[in-house]
């Protein structure tokens, strides 16, 4: 399966080079997400020695008062994180470990199995650490990133400030390890040293014709990518979860709605909405 995928990708790259609209070679030190359009938008993939933040969905409890007492004030984008953990595992032939830090971002282990045969590689190479405080979470992330046996560190980054994210970013860069942080959406306004920031949202289904898929879908939006200009570093993609195979792919329905005015103006609308929430 992987050789075939590689072959198809090399043909696509060659084809793109002929048209002159693609990078000539695969950048080094980059993890391909498996979503070609997303990779193209961020220069080939997620930087390996770097921190990448994924802002999750907000629960129904939106006000700060209710948020404190709600059982699940926000939902980390677990399916996206599982997909990226698989991508990293597929790219690393050495069989490095994935460390999940913070109970909130532990996925149900069933989604760590892939395909109908139930490939258990990710499940067997996953360590789950559950610190109680943000300080302990930061310490555990720092420690895990320093271990050469660890390929990806996925953590709950809620209540992390600028200094914390800078510390994680520096350690990830020095040890060339991928760090993924799940953060609540209301921390969008917090300063962060992350290489890329993403917002993952569930889309309200008003019209019947837009819920034709029997698989869960999310709208993933690129908020920031270091080293790129603001107008370049933006994009919105629909990702669809394959419940049987436990993988994410770019939904085909996005291609149809590419020219849709509502989608084109989505980042502006979303920013306005987040600003209102913060205010």
């Amino acid at each position, binding site marked *: 399966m992987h050789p075939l995928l590689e072959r198809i990708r090399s043909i696509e790259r060659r084809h793109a080079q002929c048209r002159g609209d693609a990078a000539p070679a695969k950048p080094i030190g980059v993890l391909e997400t498996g979503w070609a359009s997303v990779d193209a938008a961020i220069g080939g993939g997620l930087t390996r020695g770097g921190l990448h933040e994924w802002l999750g969905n907000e629960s129904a409890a939106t006000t700060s008062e209710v948020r404190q007492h709600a059982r699940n004030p926000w939902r980390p984008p677990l399916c996206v994180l599982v997909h990226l953990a698989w991508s990293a595992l597929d790219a690393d032939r050495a069989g490095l470990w994935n460390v999940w830090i913070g109970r909130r971002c532990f996925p149900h*282990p069933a989604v760590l199995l892939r395909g109908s045969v139930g490939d258990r590689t990710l*499940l067997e190479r996953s360590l*789950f650490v559950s610190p109680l405080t943000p300080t302990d979470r930061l310490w555990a992330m720092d420690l895990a990133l320093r271990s050469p046996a660890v390929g990806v560190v996925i953590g709950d980054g809620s209540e992390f400030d600028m200094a914390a994210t800078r510390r994680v970013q520096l350690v990830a860069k020095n040890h060339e390890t991928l760090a993924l942080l799940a953060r609540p959406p209301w921390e969008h306004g917090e300063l962060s040293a992350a290489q890329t920031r993403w917002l993952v949202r569930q889309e309200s289904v008003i019209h019947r014709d837009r819920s034709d898929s029997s698989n869960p879908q999310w709208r993933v939006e690129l908020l920031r990518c270091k080293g790129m200009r603001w107008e370049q570093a933006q994009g919105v993609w629909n990702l669809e979860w394959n419940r049987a195979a436990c993988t994410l792919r770019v939904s085909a329905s996005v291609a149809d709605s590419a020219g849709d005015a509502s989608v084109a103006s989505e980042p502006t609308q979303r920013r306005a909405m987040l600003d209102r929430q913060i205010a």
Partner: protein
Amino acid sequence: MRRSLRSRPSGGRCSTDRSHKCALLLAASHQGNEVVACACEYAQSAGVRTGMTVTHARSLLIGRTLFIERYQPEEDAKALKSLARWAVRFTPVVAVDEPDGLLMDISGCAHLYGGEAMLADRVAGSLEGLGFKARIAVAPTFVSAQVVSRSAEQQITIVEAGGIHDALASLPIAALRMDTSMGEALREIGIERIGQLFDLPRAELAARFSGNIGRCLDRATGDALDAIEPVQPLEPIEVERVFDGPVTSLEAILISVRELLRLLLRRLEKESSGACELSLTAERIHADPVMLALRLSHPSRDEAHLWSLLQPRLERLSLGYGVEEIRLRAVHTQRTGNGQMEFWPDPSSSIRPEQSVSWGQMLDQLTERIGREGVTVAAPSESYVPERAFVFQPWDEDRASRNSRSTEKASVYAAARPSRLFAPPDPVRVVTLTPDGPLLRLEWGGRAGAVRSCLGPERLVLPWWADSRRRENESAAMPGGSATRDYYTVQDEHGRWLWVFRDGASGRWFVHGEWT
């Protein structure tokens, strides 16, 4: 069998816990069939016998919780050897009598315990404390003790110096553990008991069969020299420091322990070993001693790493009126290779060696700060019930279970499951087409909306073969924990993908998970 019971996470409660009994079988392959190599008492009470097929045993144990593990004779031999080392506390000469016995030379030791009977009682009680049931025989010779202990019905038998002939005479010849062919040959001429062998002329016996049987009888009666090969007791690797008087200064304690650690690691280096478990004992004046135990994920003799684990614990140590003595001991050690140190580090590498931590060091530090229960791995368990399909267990338990059952993996029920499971399930208000039918509208998490798609139902029934009391307890503890659940995968108009079920008994609806 006892080794397997003790190695289980429940600590060997399989047969003894009356509230929830379960049976344990050890299976081995024999001529293409899976046969029972060993069965626990609970299984034996149901009629399971050694040598019967596993399928037959399953049919006898139907309706009871059953665990089947692989029979590992080599692991039994290792456990027996370590038990022999443990028994050195009673007498310095202890040997292994395979497959399931120990030989102890108690000459000159019995009086320390108040006589042979008292010593035998003490040994039996100590073994029972470890989870083993033992039959003990005290006899003038090793062979007679072997024969009597394997044939006697009572737990402790004492054979006096002049009573060997009487004790052995009534026992069957099979107790001498001779070749099968020789046993059959003796039975053909009508010899069933050892006493009949004593009556036969020794020269004729040797001429007709072989000299072995005569030698065996002589060793049993004490007419021939008998020797055993005792196990070598392991010398504990321990260092200690005795102070001139009670020390109350924490700084002095820290300096002393650091020096002791250095000495201990030097000894470990000479033996090419690393410490898997360390224990530190501080003897305090007018107070009980304090003991610290440090378990490591991998054998280590890295001073900086061990000190980083020990120091925070020492700083929390209660010194009382002062510490008089400190002992540091490597409780468990394991052989490690001798790696060559780098004198000139690679200049091209941006990572300095002191900045990176190995996998083992990372696990140790995480366990030390967060606790053993906070550093886990997920393992599938043999269940299709969603909340029981996987267990999060401490990494060291998982490693032990992987080592013991490296070839066997629990099967996983292949069905789509949400990325997040709620424990316990969250009640939800729904509007349905029929009482148990597809959902039209739901209200959960402060949001109400129409259902856009509803897939299902997937009916799950809790295992009917499980113990009914356990099922009732789970039903009471968990909302929606009744015997039948109908699961639906639901998308509402807010875009949420929820895993909703209807409780068969109460008819109430719950959200059990969500795709996030």
